[in-house]
């Protein structure tokens, strides 16, 4: 079973991530699933009628605006990094937390590596499914990379200049 980092702890993964080409036929009534955006857009009613937990995942080029007024339906929003250098979803996570007030889980999936976790957490991610070949235990250390930061972000409402002693 894959293990993920959630709120700074390592926990067992209980959600099933459905691939981009998943169809409604692949889905059972119970169990927690994270569906690709397209499936949600097409079958939102059917998905809402299920008993299991529901999450949605967005690929790097997909925009959060598309579901901004439906966020209450999701316990998890997973944002995919096709490469760790693709920074688009840093903005998505920030918007989810600060503009759309999303309080559920925001999870990083895909090419998620230790050296990006500090910044990812800052912009609002609270769960990280590290790339399968990486050890989440090692990765926990990166949350302590910096003791202080200059900017306001999802984790820190005030920039340093409003906090400086």
């Amino acid at each position, binding site marked *: 079973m894959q293990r993920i980092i959630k709120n700074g702890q390592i926990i067992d993964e209980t959600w099933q991530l459905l691939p981009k080409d998943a169809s409604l036929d692949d889905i059972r009534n119970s169990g927690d699933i994270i569906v690709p955006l397209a499936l949600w857009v097409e079958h939102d009613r059917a998905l809402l009628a299920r008993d299991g937990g529901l999450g949605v995942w967005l690929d790097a080029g997909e925009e959060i605006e598309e579901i901004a007024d439906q966020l209450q339906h999701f316990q998890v929003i997973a944002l995919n990094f096709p490469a*760790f250098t693709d920074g688009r979803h840093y903005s998505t996570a920030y918007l989810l937390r600060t503009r759309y007030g999303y309080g559920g889980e925001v999870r990083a999936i895909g090419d998620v590596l230790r050296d*990006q976790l500090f*910044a990812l957490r800052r912009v609002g991610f609270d769960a990280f499914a590290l790339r399968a070949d990486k050890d989440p235990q090692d990765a926990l250390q990166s949350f302590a990379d910096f003791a202080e930061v200059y900017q306001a972000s999802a984790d820190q409402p005030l920039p340093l200049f409003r906090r400086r002693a």
Partner: protein
Amino acid sequence: MYVYDEYDQRIVEDRVKQFRDQTRRYLNGELSGDEFRPLRLQNGLYIQRYAPMLRIAVPYGLLASRQVRKLAQIARDYDKGYAHISTRQNVQFNWPDLEDVPEILAELASVQLHSIQTSGNCVRNTTTDQFAGVARDELIDPRPWCEIIRQWSTFHPEFCQLPRKFKIAVNGAGNDRAAIEVHDIGLEAVHNAAGELGFRVLVGGGLGRTPMVGSFINEFLPWQHLLSYLDAILRVYNRYGRRDNKFKARIKILVKALGAEAFAEKVNAEFAHLKDGPTTLTEAEVERVARHFVDPAYLALVDLDDELSRLDNEHPGFARWRSRNTTPHKKAGYVAVTLSLKPTGTAPGDVSDKQLDAIADLADRYSFGEVRNSHFQNIILADVEQRRLFELWGELRELGFATPNVGLLTDIICCPGGDFCSLANAKSIPVAEAIQRRFDDLDYLFDLGEIDLNISGCMNACGHHHVGHIGILGVDKKGQEFYQVSLGGHSGRDARLAQILGPSFAQDDMADVIEKIIAVYVEQRHADELFIDTYQRIGIDPFKERVYAANH
């Protein structure tokens, strides 16, 4: 200059620790080369042709003498005894060992220096006028704003994996010496009718493969909103900038594709959410930062025009140097002095460890312990007493810094090129040297007047060849090093990109080609007309005809 408090220091020290660990993990195989690459780049570390290259950030070009001494020591201890001043006011070392880099960073941190974000796809060092704070045509001192932007951009969590590099320049003066129009964002200080301070904001300028002059998208952004507005621009770019093709990933391509107006609308829509939020700047913060840039303890002196003219008459060499290498100062009795790092036979912008130590020493004795790097790859002592100018000239001559060529044809901007850089198509340093040797007659050089000659070893345009009055670009022609020449570029206000002259030339022909171009200018110029003005009047054709005329 800005002095770190415990927060700034902590952040830089944490970075050293972080990078030390990343390097360790790379060396023991936990991090692959591909995983380490963006990490080391965002710390200014390139793997180059012969050795790694480490680029040290010099925020807006400003250095204290103790920092210069530290750079000298690093050049001595970890490099081959020299450093290179880059075209973005930074300092580069060409020969450090990768294993030593964490230790070098720790040394740098001890004098409040670092290499954070000097490369990679992130917000780079913010640059400005090398005469900031002393220029006579200054509206406001841009340095506090550069420092405010430096802090905002340092490890900005949302903008640490941008589509491509991102460069911001700030101008606070009448003339634009910071080339803001060819930056991703250019900021120009302005006052509105009510006398309030704001910024004119330009986006989408840049050199490189697809050079463009940017577009102004906001004529007056009140200073309080500077950072929130930058956040808005960067968010639009981070989300919508192209990532499928690295040659189309700069913000200029996005601005061009959308059109400047549509881009501005997107920024404004984003800014509407951010305006008046917590990132709005406070007077207290601006004052806190500005306190670090108040005037040094200037003496009440008077301008010594008569005395200096008398010295000019007695010492033609001094007169010549003074006319080229000094700049009027806002304060009576003072003058800014440019140390030319362009003597013939030295790679433009290179300084040895001994020279760096000497510069630190001069800074302490003549200029309140500070120096500036310019994007022209020279070093400036900004606050020299006029009554000591003659004495300083004597010292500079001894040290090899008094070549009286600032702004002249041989004050060449030149990237490291094929001698060092693994991206190069061609060498640039030997071309610079060949041209310097051809134009070694000072009287002739003076007669030619101001000419910007810029050389890049490849399309990346680190040598800013597109905005040189004469630009030279190294190209690869069937595996051979060739050079394309362009004319008419200009980096100041109303920046202009140079026009390509025609087919490229072999390295051995370059000095001849430049000589022919100069000959056309000399024949055609009106009295006192500068090269760039003659070019604009007569166009490119006469130059083309001469250069490509069949040899008889």
